């Protein structure tokens, strides 16, 4: 946020209640400076953002390595049960940094706004980002705003980038799953995806399903404090658990066997999936993680996860084994076996 302060006395303040985004808000001129000042800086303000330069000047970190991750958010609708695009864009990127084993430190936020978008909605979204960032202790230290003509966007798109630091030797990677390891998930599957699906206009069914969007670095800290030998962490977002596990088997060159009976799924999500012909294994999550750890530490890790509010429904769901074909397989509740394949095609567009 590079623009200087606008002198309050000479500027009529933004009409947040009735106003709309117009092309001038992305022009780099006074209107943009005002939008940044009265909306973004007001809610997101912190010492780094207040520097007001082209970039944020941040303290260099000592030992360890930096982790950087970026994530664009195009979710439709912008507001959904349990969250909105604002908090989602904060949680999503924090989680991507945290599952690398890093402590998330800072975020950047880039906004693409559509001409005509209501300032009142934008204010709600920015407030939600501010609340999420504050609760997570990860400030948004720099940002950017662009405006596109009406019809060229869909309200607002948000790209966030996160930087974190990982202590020497504490890095995690999807390459580290080993035969014999246990596979755990931190809670019920598919809540975010089905919450979005349930409010999409064309489906029009009502349900109490709420998105699970949450920042997971607190849960991860608890898990690492337990001393369990964690090999892999991942957040199963788009494509769901199935897709994430297939990524890990390929990266690590292993296979997996899941137990269908052990998979935690909220009954309302299960029923909605059944109704729509979807499989909860492929439905997106925004506040869940998969952990793969040494077999002997599985119980210890499970206890640690369950001690944290975001891991209360954690479960051990399977084992890693040798498999040159890198299949993720599952023993079905029925007693047969099947593959849990990569997601094919698009199950649900614009989910995050």
């Amino acid at each position: 946020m590079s623009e200087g302060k606008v002198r309050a006395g000479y500027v009529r303040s933004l009409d947040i209640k009735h106003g709309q985004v117009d092309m001038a808000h992305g022009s780099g001129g006074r209107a943009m400076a005002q939008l940044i000042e009265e909306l973004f800086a007001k809610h997101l303000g912190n010492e780094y953002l207040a520097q007001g330069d082209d970039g944020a000047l941040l303290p260099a970190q000592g030992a360890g390595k930096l982790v950087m991750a970026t994530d664009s958010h195009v979710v439709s609708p912008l507001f959904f049960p349990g969250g909105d695009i604002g908090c989602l864009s904060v949680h999503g990127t924090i989680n991507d940094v945290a599952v690398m084993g890093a402590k998330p430190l800072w975020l950047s936020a880039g906004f693409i706004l559509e001409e005509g978008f209501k300032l009142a909605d934008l204010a709600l979204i920015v407030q939600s980002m501010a609340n999420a960032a504050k609760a997570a202790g990860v400030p948004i230290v720099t940002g950017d705003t662009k405006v596109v003509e009406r019809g060229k966007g869909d309200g607002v798109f948000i790209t966030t980038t996160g930087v974190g630091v990982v202590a020497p030797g504490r890095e995690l990677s999807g390459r580290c799953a080993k035969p014999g390891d246990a596979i755990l998930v931190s809670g019920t599957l598919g809540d975010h995806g089905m919450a979005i699906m349930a409010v999409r206009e064309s489906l029009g069914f009502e349900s109490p399903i709420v998105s699970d969007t949450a920042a997971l670095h607190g849960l991860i800290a608890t898990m690492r404090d337990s001393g369990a030998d964690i090999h892999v962490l991942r957040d199963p977002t788009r494509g769901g658990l199935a897709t994430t596990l297939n990524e890990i088997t390929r990266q690590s060159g292993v296979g997996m066997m899941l137990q269908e009976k052990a998979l935690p799924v909220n009954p309302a999500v299960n029923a909605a999936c059944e109704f729509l012909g979807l499989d909860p294994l492929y439905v997106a999550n925004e506040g869940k993680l998969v952990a793969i750890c040494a077999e002997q530490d599985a119980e210890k890790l499970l206890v640690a996860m369950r001690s944290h509010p975001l891991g209360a429904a954690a479960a051990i769901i399977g084992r890693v084994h040798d498999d040159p074909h890198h299949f993720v397989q599952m023993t079905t509740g029925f007693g047969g076996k099947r593959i849990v394949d990569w997601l094919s095609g698009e199950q649900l567009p614009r989910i995050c």
Partner: protein
Amino acid sequence: MKYIDEFRDGEVAKGLAESIRREANPERTYHFMEFCGGHTHAISRYGVSDLLPGNVRMIHGPGCPVCVLPIGRVDQAIRLALEQGVMLCTYGDCLRVPASDGLSLLKAKARGGDIRMVYSSADAVTLAQKNPDKQVVFFAIGFETTTPPTAVAIKQAAALGLKNFSVLCCHVLTPSAISSILESPEVRQWGTVPLDGFIGPAHVSTIIGSRPYEFFAEEYRKPVVIAGFEPLDVMQAIRMLIRQVNEGRAEVENEFSRAVDRDGNKKAQQLVAEVFEMRKNFEWRGLNVLPYSALRIRSQFAEFDAEKRFPLEYQSVPDHKACECGAILRGVKRPQDCKIFGTVCTPENPIGSCMVSSEGACAAHYTYGRYKDVA
């Protein structure tokens, strides 16, 4: 889930598997065709075949709506979207069916066609109401299960006086497909497709009842057991078929009695008869042109018939040369017998229609069962 989990109970499955093993005569093999894609999907997804003894084999049938949709019909839908500029609505599975010129409805959408996925025919009517300046066409596919909702949509459009709604009717009839298989030389003459009985359709039978299958049991001496789409339904039906074969009976039995009776849903049948009539001929993918095997819209509702409203000549297009979908749909080959299965033809890049829907034999085997081929 109440009323669902009961039909997926692993303990009950174990008991059924045990009794199937006990009753199946080890001296012979049993080949049963599950007609419906719904059964194919259940068998693959729950691993039902893992619970069957080696001498009880399942053959996948042609009852997958998008699998039997010929290229020429998808081409028509694409032409409507790209050349006539209509808003084309259809069920999700249709979107990826390969058509001519490397296109599919999904690819036509990327080229600017206004193509919408709907969950019900009623959604298409709603879209027509909301977009009075656009012609909205519902690309109606499927067997007897999806036909009554299309009839309702047409009657609803008539009642609302909609001038911008029409239907490209590609509804097909189950009994025609079963006869075509039973009449095929592989079954009748050469015996290269051994067929000891059918698992009869679940949802289709709720509409047409169990009576239409009696002819097949009597005329062709093939046992038919109508079964629900849950895995325990399938297991139970297999046991009932084995008993019929062992006792030398060829009857229609109803495992799905919680939803199906002999006469079916008369109200739905009347509705369908009111809006639709038989087509003299209809091309099926894999089964060629079958006489009186599909429905068209009656002249009374002609204004809602997209084939009459738009210039739409039907052109038959042959399948890809290496594609074995035809033989697979007739039970002559298995997915893994096809040279391009899993190499050129994958769920991401389907060449044949059986690789598209999760009910298709190839997609089901690829997605759930291909580990067996490399083991």
